[in-house]
């Protein structure tokens, strides 16, 4: 073994406090050290050349660089020695700048410490092993969970790069929440006008497969190689035969409240959720269908000229492989029935923002008329209440839902547009309009559309004489306020989907106490998760408006495409490995692995002459944290790059 030690002056950064020459001399006397040298800037080109030349000249096989923190230049020197023909994992760095020269003033003591730090690195490197990067193959297909605007955008981006994308959507049509909206702030372009073309693009793309009315059942595998089971719920209509003529739902005798219209309108038992649905293929709601309830009726089947109706259709579970997964499951609305002071959600003329969207939509259940659900009369005085559920630790959520200020302003504007005699009263706590043209929009609603903004939360709402009495306050004037409203619109907050935790557990991604999925880093990895190969977009991670949702969708797509374009997936070899002869198979490591990177394996025990269970590292999944090594009582599992032997050698050298 021939170790070379190179000590860096770093200008005066190190040499100012540490006697670099002495360090170099001392190092030359360490066991197994063949050569040592110092240089002004080891990371510079001449410095690196000095290392390379010395490797060749002295036939060095391991290198120690005593310089700055490895977080700065470990990669630099790995490349440098690799170029000189040494395995890049046969170097170690002694941090004699950040941990020595910069924090000590006494030259003698600092020099002494620098020598010892170098000695530590030398002892460690003497136990290093050459390591090779590992490679895995990548399944060139991306799974997108959720077919709202977020999933649609991601699919378009992936397809644009000519990679296949699969959307799994649990509703009968893609489109998500955005399909329900009327207009969008702050530009007021109609949601359908900008969303429908995208839905059509997706449906026509040769690269995109859609599984609507389907749900994820099971996910296994790891980055590049996920195996996913998808349950395709029985639609009762053959998607390949159906022409979307609509005869079936026109003739269906059963009417039930439409989920898409938030119960404001009706749909049939065989239905498409909305006219622009993609795919434009109906589904039979078996709970309400007469045929399924009584075995009578069967009108749809009789009337369908192409024979697409299939009452015997069964759920089908398919299995597919994916290289990456984009989670785009969106949000749910906060359930305001917890507010007793607002009548436990029982007042008919109290609706949520989403109801309002449907109502104001000209293709919606009221044909764009804003009316009181109780008696169908047109409204005059409408109270909008912001922060319902949001910013309320007592009954709701601790966080701000971020879009309610804006959509409420939009609603106030649309109200006046639809009904010139109406008056909007908006109860708010703070107006959060931080976005391009957002503040201007709110200002416009106040100035030009006459919305009255009142600063205060509403304390009580009750019915009297056919009106809703709203009792609030305006803290700016110090006044209590009572408004007799025709309609109250609650800006309910955005919450995670009810089944978000079970999906997260399936995917092995963390979620926070509000059940929102957690990103790998809030600033620097906002669309990644700590599980590599799984990315987040849209409101499943935190409340987002449409521009932010689309932006994260494209960001997640780029991350997924970054994987797709690789031939093989290179992984740092600094991961755990099991010495199966030593392993007792107690599986303490498996249970302690934060990444499920350890699996059971069976080996033939030659001594016992029988098979026994042992642990095995799934190399592609292991992140190299080393937790398993510390829980292993028999030291059968070790971490490359930070092996027990290396660390014990370091301690030994003290």
């Amino acid at each position, binding site marked *: 073994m021939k170790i070379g030690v190179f000590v860096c002056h770093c200008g005066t950064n190190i040499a100012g406090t540490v006697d670099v020459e002495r360090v170099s001399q001392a190092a030359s006397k360490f066991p197994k050290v063949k050569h040592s040298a110092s240089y002004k800037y080891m990371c510079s080109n001449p410095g690196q050349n000095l290392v390379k030349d010395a490797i060749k000249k002295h036939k060095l096989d391991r290198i120690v660089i005593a310089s700055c923190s490895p977080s700065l230049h470990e990669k630099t020197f790995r490349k440098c020695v690799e170029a000189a023909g040494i395995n890049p994992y046969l170097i170690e760095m002694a941090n004699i700048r950040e941990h020595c020269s910069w924090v000590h003033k006494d030259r003698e003591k600092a020099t002494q410490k620098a020598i010892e730090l170098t000695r530590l690195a030398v002892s460690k490197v003497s136990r290093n092993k050459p390591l090779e990067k590992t490679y895995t193959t990548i399944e060139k297909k991306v799974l997108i969970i959720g077919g709202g605007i977020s999933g649609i955008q991601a699919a378009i981006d992936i397809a644009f790069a000519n990679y296949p994308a699969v959307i799994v959507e649990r509703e009968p049509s893609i489109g998500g929440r955005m399909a329900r909206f009327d207009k969008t702030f702050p530009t007021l372009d109609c949601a359908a006008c900008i969303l429908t073309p995208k839905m059509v693009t997706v449906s026509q793309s040769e690269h995109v497969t859609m599984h609507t009315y389907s749900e994820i059942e099971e996910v296994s595998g790891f980055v590049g190689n996920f195996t996913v089971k998808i349950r395709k719920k029985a639609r009762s209509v053959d998607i390949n035969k159906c022409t979307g003529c609509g005869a079936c739902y026109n003739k269906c005798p059963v009417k039930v409240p439409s989920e898409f219209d938030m119960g404001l309108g009706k749909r049939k038992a065989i239905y498409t959720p909305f006219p622009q649905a993609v795919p434009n293929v109906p589904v039979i709601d078996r709970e309400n269908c007469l045929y399924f309830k009584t075995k009578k009726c069967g009108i749809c089947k009789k009337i369908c000229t192409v024979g697409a109706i299939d009452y015997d259709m069964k759920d089908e579970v398919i299995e597919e492989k994916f290289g990456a997964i984009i989670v785009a499951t969106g949000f749910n609305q906060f359930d305001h029935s917890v507010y007793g002071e607002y009548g436990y959600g029982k007042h008919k003329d109290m609706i949520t923002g989403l109801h309002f969207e449907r109502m104001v939509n000209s293709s919606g259940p009221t044909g764009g008329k804003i009316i009181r659900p109780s008696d169908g009369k047109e409204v005059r005085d409408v109270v909008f209440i912001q922060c319902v559920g949001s910013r309320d630790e007592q009954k709701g959520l601790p966080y701000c839902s971020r879009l309610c200020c804006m959509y409420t302003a939009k609603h106030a504007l649309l109200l006046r547009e639809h009904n010139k005699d109406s008056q909007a009263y908006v109860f708010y706590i703070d107006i959060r309009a931080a976005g391009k043209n957002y503040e201007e929009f709110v200002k416009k609603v106040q100035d030009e559309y006459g919305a009255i903004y009142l600063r205060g939360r509403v304390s009580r709402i009750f019915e009297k004489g056919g009106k809703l009495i709203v009792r609030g306050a305006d803290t700016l004037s110090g006044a209590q306020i009572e408004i007799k409203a025709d309609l109250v619109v609650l800006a309910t907050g955005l919450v995670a989907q009810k089944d978000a935790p079970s999906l997260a557990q399936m995917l092995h991604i963390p979620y926070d106490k509000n059940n929102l999925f957690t990103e790998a880093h809030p600033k620097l990895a906002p669309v990644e998760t700590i599980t590599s190969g799984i990315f987040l977009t849209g409101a499943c991670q935190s409340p987002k408006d449409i521009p932010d949702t689309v932006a994260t969708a494209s960001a997640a797509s780029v991350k997924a495409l970054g994987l797709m374009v690789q031939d093989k997936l290179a992984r740092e070899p600094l991961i755990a490995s099991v010495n199966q002869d*030593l392993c007792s*198979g107690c599986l303490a490591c498996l249970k*302690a692995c934060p990444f499920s990177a350890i699996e059971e394996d069976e080996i033939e025990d030659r001594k016992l002459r029988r098979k026994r*269970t042992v642990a095995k590292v799934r190399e592609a999944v292991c992140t190299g944290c080393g937790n398993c090594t510390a829980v292993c*009582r028999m030291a059968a599992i070790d971490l490359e790059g930070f092996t027990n032997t290396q660390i*014990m050698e370091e301690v030994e050298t003290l």
Partner: protein
Amino acid sequence: MIDQIKTKAKELLKTKKVDIVIGYKKASDRIGAIPAFIDKEGDIDKLIWDGYCVYNLSNYLKDFPGKKIGIVTKGCDAKSMTVLLQENQLKREDIFIIGIECSGIVDEKRKGGDIAYDERCKGCKPATPPIYDVLIKEEEKKQAPRLEQDPYESVRKLETKSIEEKFKFWQDEFSRCIRCYACRQICPLCYCPRCVAEQTQPAWFSKAVSVEGNFSWNVNRAMHLAGRCIDCGECERACPVGIPLRDINKKIEKDVKELFSYEAGVDTEQKPLFSSFDKNDPEDFIK
């Protein structure tokens, strides 16, 4: 009671439900009891049950790989079996547990004298095994009155000593250690293919009888049993130089109970102590 054990053992062997029954038989001194491995119906009458049946028989389970075993199991022994099951060392379907609701065993140190219940029996309640396939109960009248005693009395006494006193106490104790590893051999939960004490790459601690070697070994043994030791007391019984090993085991047992509400050997499905955590684990010792 012994009849019940014998009947069950006979039935198990007869129906081929098990290949072998592990129980107790009289030792050569006619007082003590030693393990009995019965694979023939004819030998069944050798089985005994009395207060001298101190051995934890689960230790012998691993000696019969691939065989179905019926095993006479006290409450404390069943706990170690629970840990072994939890740690994937046994297959539940391979063993038939003849659970004994025991009334306590004698203190071996006072062999021959009056039946004095062993220290560890005093804190044991209930004595029902956490797992069993059949449960055989001691007759009511034989049930020893259980002392409502603090099981951690001696631990607490040591805890109140000063650091120097503690150090001296343990150094004295450990200085006698001859590194015979009897504590390890007898322990039903020490089953590593190769103990770290014997590894050389790296050499985890000194193999020689020395202050720091003995200390390291004993700390290592204790840490490896943290959240696993079910206080069967075999180690202390086996120690030829009489180191109070149970006082170390009990200390950890007490700590993990207090810190993490964790108890060993009660649930085969529970995650090992160090392979699990709670977000609210105490951290007042961390700066």
